[in-house]
């Protein structure tokens, strides 16, 4: 279900915090069933990670993601709630 949510976010800017405390801001270009992300136009803290300055496209492994923060209006909380309920109904 979260996969379909993130598929609707393709082309949107998100901020990803990784388990190594790195924060990456970028535009989602694709996402798969493990919630691996491909981000374009990324920006990171150049002082902390100078070696990433030349990187514009990156692949982030889903298992290394701690948080994903996004603009509030990218997702509809009521819709998400309903989707979660529907999922439970489908299982039972």
């Amino acid at each position, binding site marked *: 279900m979260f996969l379909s949510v993130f598929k609707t976010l393709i082309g949107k800017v998100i901020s990803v915090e990784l388990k190594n405390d790195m924060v990456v801001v970028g535009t989602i270009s694709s996402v798969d069933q493990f919630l*691996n992300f491909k981000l374009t136009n990324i920006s990171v803290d150049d002082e902390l990670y*100078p*070696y990433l300055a*030349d990187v514009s*496209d*990156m*692949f*982030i*492994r889903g298992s290394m993601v701690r948080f994903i*923060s996004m603009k509030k209006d990218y997702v509809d909380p009521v819709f998400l709630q309903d989707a979660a309920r529907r999922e439970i109904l489908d299982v039972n």
Partner: protein
Amino acid sequence: MNRDRETQRTLEVNDAPGTASLVDQLDRVVLLVLFDGRTIVGILRSYDQYGSVFLDQCVERKTHNTFYCDVAVGFLMVRAENIVLIGELKEPTPSNMARIGLGALKEMQAAEQVTTTRATEFDSGFWD
């Protein structure tokens, strides 16, 4: 309706390898950041559904501030669980960093007191 179906098909084709299309990066120079903080630069030759990769002509890129040193490590297979991210590089050498010898780099690292890990904080005003 027709357009929706087309979009759906495009998504399915792009997702086919299971790994958010690393196919674009094949035979390109990539920079791997590993979970222990090491960075490896090499040419991406192959990958699997978990995101393990084979890298050709690898170097471990040791960095200290804006200085770096590449140590050749040959042909590597990196198991997926160690990989944090894979970034695509246009040039194998960084444009904003100065290359120095391994000895000089190690001296610099030793000279600087190792600071404790930084706790990140949510920036509540980020999206405003």
